[in-house]
């Protein structure tokens, strides 16, 4: 009888997995860190880890198709003479002309306008196309100040001072040479084709005390008309929100690490910042302690995908949410119809993130005129509006089921968490228990 040793199957390391090994080899071959677009790809505690309880013996639901559930929100009620009146609590986040093509920016404006909400400029200034197609346009005030001018400040509907971004809190912008076309270069006062690095800090203020004076200046220039937002990357949301209020913000935008970027180092995207879920309750707590909840509005962004995410963010205390990645997908980003071209770029639909290279088959994250022409801004705007409508209906469906006649009446009490981590971050009980880790005893 012959004895055979049982074979030992090949076993790959959970630590040195295929992605880690490939990155080590790529770094060794090129000597430069990996740059990409988008947000974190890690599995993080997120809105999927929360559930709504719905109505029951002690809660009275609203009739789904008959009883009204309001979705409107007003942003900028603290100091601005002309607050923004939005029909839905979902706004379009800042994305630059430069990172995106002209038709893509136009489509975002069209979709937002059809939906009664706002869209936002980005690091690179305001184009006439996006102003023309956006009924409500938020003008970002960034460290680079590319294209910044008082005329555009005055024709904006709100001003968003960008302190940080969820994908890269503490990092500046990056637009590589492939996307610095003649027009982008002119708008940014830069030589064509260079690898452009935007500053990570504002050039003329350093902290909340002089930011307060900066806000005074912007209000004086715009005759106190415009709401002023302060956008912070998810980092220290409790303190940052409190300091933003102190500095005079009308609106605080908190962007978690699932939020995307046009381009930055992968190591930055994956290792710096807080998950969106961990940002909301500390920010709300800061507002409540200052007596400013609902007076200074809170906008949350980073990984919002559907109406359930919207409802959950609002239930945790946000006044509105903002979407970037999801809006691009609605326009046509990463669509499987371009699979052959994604394959030619060494990737696949759903995973394409080399937005900085400007070769986007969908014609969205590019400055190549032939690629950009693939996107019909009217049809793409319509798709975005459809998507926003579905998100809103989904959020209303949940709110009615919980017995609320306005999305803002959703409460943390409507929620439970599926995991201990989500329960701790969202500060709602673990499902089936009354336990909120860090808040209550077992």
């Amino acid at each position, binding site marked *: 009888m012959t004895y055979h040793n049982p074979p030992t199957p090949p076993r790959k390391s959970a630590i040195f997995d295929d992605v880690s090994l490939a990155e080590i080899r790529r770094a060794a071959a*090129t*000597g*430069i860190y990996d740059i990409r677009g988008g947000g974190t790809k890690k599995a993080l505690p997120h809105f999927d880890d929360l559930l709504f309880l719905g109505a029951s013996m002690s809660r009275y639901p609203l009739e789904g198709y008959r009883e009204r559930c309001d979705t409107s929100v007003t942003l900028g009620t603290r100091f601005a003479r002309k607050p923004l009146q939005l029909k839905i609590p979902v706004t379009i986040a800042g994305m630059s002309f430069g990172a995106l093509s002209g038709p893509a920016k136009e489509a975002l404006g069209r979709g937002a306008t059809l939906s009664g909400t706002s869209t936002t400029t980005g690091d690179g200034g305001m184009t006439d196309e996006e102003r023309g197609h956006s009924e409500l346009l938020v003008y970002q005030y960034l460290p*680079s*100040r590319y294209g*910044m*001018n*008082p005329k555009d*400040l005055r024709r904006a509907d709100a001003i968003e001072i960008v302190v940080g971004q969820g994908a890269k809190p503490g990092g500046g912008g990056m637009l*590589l*040479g492939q996307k610095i076309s003649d027009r982008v270069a002119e708008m*940014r*006062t*830069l*030589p064509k084709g*260079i*690898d452009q*690095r935007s*500053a990570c800090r504002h*050039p*003329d*203020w350093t902290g909340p005390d*002089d930011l307060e*004076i*900066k806000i*005074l*200046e912007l209000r*004086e*220039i*715009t*005759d*106190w008309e415009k709401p002023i937002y302060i956008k912070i990357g998810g980092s220290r949301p409790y303190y940052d929100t409190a300091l933003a209020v102190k500095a005079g913000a009308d609106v605080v935008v908190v962007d978690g690490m699932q939020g995307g970027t046009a381009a930055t180092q992968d190591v930055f995207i994956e290792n710096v910042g807080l998950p969106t879920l961990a940002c909301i309750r500390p920010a709300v707590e800061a507002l409540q302690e200052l007596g400013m909840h609902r007076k200074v509005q809170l906008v949350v962004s980073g990984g919002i995908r559907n109406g359930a995410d919207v409802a959950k963010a609002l239930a945790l205390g946000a006044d509105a949410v903002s979407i970037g990645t999801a809006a691009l997908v609605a326009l046509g980003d990463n669509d499987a119809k371009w699979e052959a071209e994604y394959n030619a770029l060494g990737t696949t639909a759903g995973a394409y993130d080399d937005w900085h290279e400007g070769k986007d088959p969908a014609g969205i994250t590019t400055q190549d005129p032939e690629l950009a022409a693939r996107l019909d801004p009217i049809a793409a705007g319509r798709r975005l509006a459809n998507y926003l409508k579905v998100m809103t209906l989904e959020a209303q469906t949940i709110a009615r089921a919980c017995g609320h006649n306005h999305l803002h009446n959703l409460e943390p009490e409507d929620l439970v968490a599926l995991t201990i981590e989500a329960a701790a971050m969202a500060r709602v009980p673990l499902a089936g228990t009354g336990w909120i880790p860090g808040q209550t005893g077992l």
Partner: protein
Amino acid sequence: MPTFDLSQTPLRELNQALHGLAAGANDTEFEVVNPRGSHAVAVGCDAPVAVSIRGSVGYYCAGMNSAATVTVHGSAGPGVAENMMSGTVVVEGDASQYAGATGRGGLLVIKGNAASRCGISMKGIDIVVHGNIGHMSAFMGQSGNLVVLGDAGEALGDSLYEAKLFVRGSVKSLGADCVEKEMREEHLTLLAGLLERAGVTGVEPSEFRRYGSARKLYSFDIDNADAY
């Protein structure tokens, strides 16, 4: 000439008056007294008026100025003439940090000294400083001209793009990718014009040295990592 006494009149009234000017309005000269270090004085002007400020101002005086001539008969706090688009801003005394930051046009004249980060991220503005400037001046300067009759502090022109820097005195150190460049005839002509516009007399363009970008950091290259 309308006069605004900022010890009596809210800042809002001054700036609103400056913004609300109709084309061809009779009032083209304004005077501000008792500024007492107020912030955001005469910001966002967008008409060819003259504003004389009798005293020292705080942050962001003449911010985003377009077309107006604003004269500070005193010293200016941080960010004077920040993001100026056009027109002229004159500071008779000294200026604090970030003078002319991100300015896109016009002329800023500082008759005293300017502190650190003078001309930071400048995008087309011309700045003439009669005295010295502090460290990290013209950081990431993209376009425009910075002229310094005195000395410059550390790390002048760090990460410079295409702004031109002219310094008559010493430079404590140059920042990353900033180098001394040849002063050609066209630069002497440019400098002579800037000195004249800034009211500088008795100084020759040939007394200055020119600094600009080496353009070695314009594209990412791992071999330049030590420079960052």
